[in-house]
C-alpha cells in the first residue's frame, strides 16, 4: 500500500508542479488551472488479487477515468484495452446500431491524426488493433510489443476526445457496416435466426430485443450529427476504464496516462436505467424460410443476467446437455440416433437479463420435431432427477479447461478483466465465476432447470427450407446411405 501511495504522491506532485509552472493567460481564471490539476489527479484505489500469483492495481484520475493494471512479464508484449460502459442496450428505437457504428468510426481521423494514420502507426509498431460492441459495452484493444505502449496511450487518448466525424466518412462506414450486417445476418442462417429469436422473445423495441449491429433501416439513416452526439455523450474519461495487461512498468505507465488523459473533461453521461424485465407469459413461435437443405430449430428461454448465481448454474446445464461428445443431448441426437448434425446451446452474458438458446440442425430427411421432442425429454429429466456427482464433476472439469485456456495470453486476461469490470464491477469476477461453478450442487441444477425451462416463457424459431433448396436437396439425395463395410 505504501508503495502505491508513494507512486500516487510522486505523480501528483509532478502534475501539480507542471500546472503551476504553466502560467495561465490573464483571461483564464486560476480556477481553470485548478480544474486541470484536479482532473489529472491520480488516486490509488485498491489492489485486487487475480488468481494466486498476480495482482491488479486499480487507479483513478480526477476526471473519472478508471485504470486497471496487471503486470505480467511472461512475454514482452502488452494488451491495452479501453472499455466503455455503453453498448447497444443504451440506444433507442430508430437509432439501433449507433454504438456499433461509432465503434467503426473510431478508426477514422482525429484533429491530430489524419484519416488512416491510427492504423498506419499501430501497424508500423507491430500492433494489432480492433474493437467489439455488445449490449452492455464497447471495447477497443491494441496488442503491441511492450516498447510501443507510449504510442498506444497517445493514440487512444487522442481519439477519446478529438475524433473527426466527416459526412463522407460516416457515409462510407455505414456502407461497411451494411456489408457486415449482410455477412452476419442477411445471408447467414444462424445470424438471422438469432436476430428473430431475441426480437421475438424480448420484443423488437426492448433494449435486448434489437440487434447490436442495428436494423438495416436504422444503419442507413444515421447522420454525422447523430454520431457526434453519441460520441460527445459517451466517449469521455468518466465513462471508460483502461485495462492494461503485460510487461509494463506501473509508474511510468501511469505517468503517461496522466499526461495524455489528464486534460480530458468528463462528460455528463446518460443514465442507463435497468431495462424492464421481459414480460412473456405464453409461448411465441415464428418461422424463417431459408435456402438450406435441412430444417433447424432455435428455442430461447428467458434467463437471469450474468451476475446471478443461476447464470453459472445454467452454464453447467449447457455443458451437461451439449458440452462435448459425452454430453447428454449431443450423444443422443448426433451419435446414437443420428437425427441431428448440430446441437448447441448458448447463454448470453448480459448484465440484467439473458436468454438461454438451444439450436438444433436436423440431418437430411430427419424430423426436426423429433429432435426437439428428445431435447424436451432431456430438459424434463433435469427437472425431475438429480444429476449424479460424477457427471457434475466432469462438466466442471471441462469448464475449468476453458477457464485456464482463456488466461493464456495477455489479451485473454485483459478480455476477462475488462468484461468483468464492466458487467460485474469486479475485475476478478472470472475467478468468482469459477468458484460458483465449483459450488453448484445437483439440487441447484434441478431447481434452475425447473425455473427456467418453462414452456410458457419460451420462444421457438423454426427454420423451414425454402422450396427451391429443398427440391434440389431431394433431387440430390442418395438412394443408399453409406454404412461402411469390410
Amino acid at each position, binding site marked *: 500500500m505504501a508503495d502505491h501511495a508513494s507512486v500516487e504522491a510522486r505523480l501528483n506532485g*509532478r*502534475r501539480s508542479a*507542471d*500546472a503551476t509552472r504553466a502560467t495561465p493567460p490573464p483571461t483564464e481564471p486560476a480556477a481553470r488551472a485548478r*480544474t486541470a490539476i484536479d482532473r489529472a489527479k491520480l488516486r490509488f484505489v485498491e489492489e485486487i488479487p487475480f488468481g494466486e500469483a498476480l495482482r491488479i492495481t486499480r487507479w483513478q484520475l480526477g476526471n473519472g477515468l478508471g485504470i486497471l493494471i496487471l503486470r505480467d512479464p511472461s*512475454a*514482452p*508484449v502488452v494488451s491495452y484495452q479501453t472499455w466503455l460502459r455503453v453498448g447497444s442496450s443504451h440506444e433507442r428505437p430508430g437509432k439501433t446500431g449507433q454504438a456499433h457504428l461509432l465503434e467503426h468510426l473510431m*478508426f477514422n481521423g482525429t484533429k491530430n491524426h489524419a484519416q488512416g494514420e491510427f*492504423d*498506419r502507426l499501430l*501497424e*508500423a509498431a*507491430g500492433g*494489432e488493433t480492433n474493437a467489439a460492441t455488445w449490449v452492455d459495452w464497447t471495447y477497443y484493444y491494441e496488442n503491441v*510489443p511492450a*516498447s*510501443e505502449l507510449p504510442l498506444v496511450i497517445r493514440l487512444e487518448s487522442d481519439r477519446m476526445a478529438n475524433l473527426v466525424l466527416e459526412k463522407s466518412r460516416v457515409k*462510407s462506414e*455505414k*456502407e*461497411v*457496416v451494411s*456489408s457486415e450486417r*449482410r*455477412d452476419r445476418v*442477411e*445471408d*447467414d442462417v444462424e445470424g438471422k435466426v438469432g436476430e428473430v429469436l431475441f426480437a421475438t422473445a424480448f420484443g423488437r423495441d426492448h433494449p435486448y430485443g434489437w440487434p447490436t449491429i442495428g436494423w438495416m433501416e436504422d444503419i442507413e439513416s444515421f447522420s454525422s450529427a447523430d454520431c457526434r452526439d453519441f460520441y460527445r455523450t459517451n466517449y469521455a474519461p468518466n465513462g471508460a476504464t483502461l485495462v492494461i495487461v503485460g510487461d509494463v*512498468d506501473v509508474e511510468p*505507465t501511469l*505517468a503517461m496516462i496522466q499526461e495524455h488523459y*489528464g*486534460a480530458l473533461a468528463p462528460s455528463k453521461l446518460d443514465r442507463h436505467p435497468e431495462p424492464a424485465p421481459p414480460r412473456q407469459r405464453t409461448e411465441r413461435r415464428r418461422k424463417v424460410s*431459408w*435456402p*438450406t437443405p*435441412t430444417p433447424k430449430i432455435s428455442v430461447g428461454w428467458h434467463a437471469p443476467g450474468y451476475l446471478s448465481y443461476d447464470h453459472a448454474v445454467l452454464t453447467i446445464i449447457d455443458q451437461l446437455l451439449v*458440452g462435448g*461428445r*459425452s454430453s447428454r443431448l449431443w450423444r443422443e441426437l448426433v*451419435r446414437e440416433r443420428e437425427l441431428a*448434425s448440430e446441437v448447441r446451446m448458448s447463454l448470453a452474458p448480459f448484465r440484467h437479463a439473458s436468454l438461454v438458446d438451444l439450436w438444433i440442425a436436423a440431418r437430411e430427411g430427419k424430423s426436426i420435431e423429433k429432435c426437439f421432442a428428445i431435447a424436451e425429454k432431456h430438459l424434463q429429466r433435469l427437472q425431475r432427477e438429480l444429476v449424479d456427482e460424477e457427471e457434475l464433476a*466432469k462438466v466442471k*472439469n*471441462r469448464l*475449468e*479447461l476453458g477457464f*485456464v*485456456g482463456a488466461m*493464456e*495470453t495477455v489479451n485473454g486476461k485483459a478480455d476477462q478483466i475488462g468484461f468483468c469490470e464492466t458487467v460485474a464491477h469486479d475485475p476478478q469476477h472470472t475467478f468468482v465465476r469459477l468458484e460458483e461453478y465449483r459450488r453448484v450442487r445437483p439440487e441447484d441444477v434441478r431447481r434452475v432447470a425447473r425455473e427456467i425451462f418453462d414452456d410458457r416463457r419460451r420462444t421457438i424459431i423454426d427454420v423451414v427450407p425454402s422450396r*427451391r433448396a429443398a427440391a434440389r*436437396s431431394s433431387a440430390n439425395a*442418395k438412394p443408399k*446411405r*453409406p454404412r*461402411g*463395410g*469390410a
Partner: protein
Amino acid sequence: VTHAPSPPIALPPKTASSLAPDPPWGPRWSTDSGITVLLEESHAIPLVDVEVVIHSGALHDPLGKEGLARLAARMLRMGTKRLSAEVVDEAIDAMGASLSAEVGHAVTRLHGAVIRRSLPQFLELVGQLVAAPALRTSDLGLVQRETIADLASQRDNDRWLASRAFRKHLFRDHAYGRPTFGSEESIGRVKRVDVARFLERSVVASNVTIGIAGDVTEHDLRPLIERAFSKIPRGTAAPAPLAPPEVAKGRRVLCVDKPERTQTQVYLGTLGARIADPLFYPMLVANTAFGGTFTSRLVREVRSERGWSYAAHARLGADREREAWAVYTHPSMEVALDCIALELRLIQAFVDEGVSEAELAAARDYLVKSHAFDRDTAGKRLEPRLDAEIHRMPASFYTHFAQHVSTVTREAASGAVRARLSHEDLSIVLVASASQIADGLTKLPGVRQVEVVPFDRV
C-alpha cells in the same frame, strides 16, 4: 487546458532488438521406437497442449476416395478394442481435456489440450487411440454418415462454399484441388480396409512427431511419452508423390448459384509459392503490403474508400508445391461486378508494378514487430517447430523470421510477385444468386469462360 510538458518518463527497452532471432527452441528427442518429440515448456498456467502429427494426409487419398484420411483421423477418436467410443468421450471430458482431429494434404493432426493434473492419463489414452484404434465397421458407417451430415451443414456457410469451389476451380485435377473433406460420393466409397491400410502405413514411428507445449518439464515428460506411445510400431512411411500444379490459362469464372443472396462471396486467385521457394519471404512481404493489413492497398481501396466489403484480404499459401494466392471479399450483389473489376485492376497493377517503397517499409515493420505475438505462448512457439518437421525446413527459416523479412528490398518483393503471380491466369469464384449477376460476369475484362453450378453440387 494545456499542461506544460512534464519531464519525459521513458519506458525501459523491453527487447534487445526486434531483429534478434527467436529464443532457442526447447528440447527435441526421439523415443526408443523413433518417434520425434518436441517440447516447449511454460509454467504460466496449468495447461498442456498435445499435438500428434502423422506425416501423411489427404495426398494419400486414392482417386474417388477423397476424404479417406479425414475419416481415418476421426476413427482414431472411436475407441480401441478395449474402450468404446463412448467410454473414450467420457474419459476425455472427465479429465478436463479436449481432443480434435485435423487433416491437411500432407498431415493428419490430433490437437489435444489438458489440465496439467490429468496429463499422464491423457497421454496414455491418446497413445492407445493412435496405436491401437478399434476400427469397427459399424463405427466407420457412423462416422461416414456424420461427415456427410456435416457436409450438408457446411453448405449453409457461403464462405466455406466459395472457398471449396475456388480450390477445385484453381487446382482442377491436381491433388490440391481434391477436397480433404471428401464428397458425399467419395466418403461413401471408403471401406474399413482402406482406413486400416492408411493407418497401418502412416502410423509408424518415424512418420510421427509429438509436440508438447505447456506446464510440464522434460524430466517428467520423457517417461510419460515413452510409455504412452510405445505401441506405435517402428518403421518409415513413403511420402505421397506430388506433381507441381499448373495454372489454367485465362481468366475463368465459376459462379456458385445460391438463391436469395444479398451479397456475394468472392475469391480471385492464382498459384502462389512453395514453402521452400527462395522467393517466399519477398512474396510474403509483398502480399502483406497488398492485402495483409488494415492499411494495405486492397483494404484501403475496397473497404476504407468505397465501403464495399467488411472483410478484404489477400492470402499467400505455401506448401511442398505451389499453393494458392487468393484475394477474398464479400461485396453486395449491387456492387459485386464493380468490386471484382476493381480487384482485377489492383491485381494487374500489383503484378506489373509491384509495391512502393512506403508500402514495403510498412509491411516489413508490421511483420517484424508483430512477430512478438507469434511467440508469446508455448503453444505458438511449438508451431514453427512442427512446421519445420512437416516441411523438412531448416530451423533458421523460422527462427530468423525478422531478419528474412527485414532484408527484403522493393526490387526483390516486386520481382517475386512478377515471377510468381499472374493477372492473366486467374480463377474467379463467387457464391451469388446467379440470375442477378451471371450476364455481367461475362463482361468482366479478359474473362473467357463463365460456368454456373448450384450450391448443393459443390
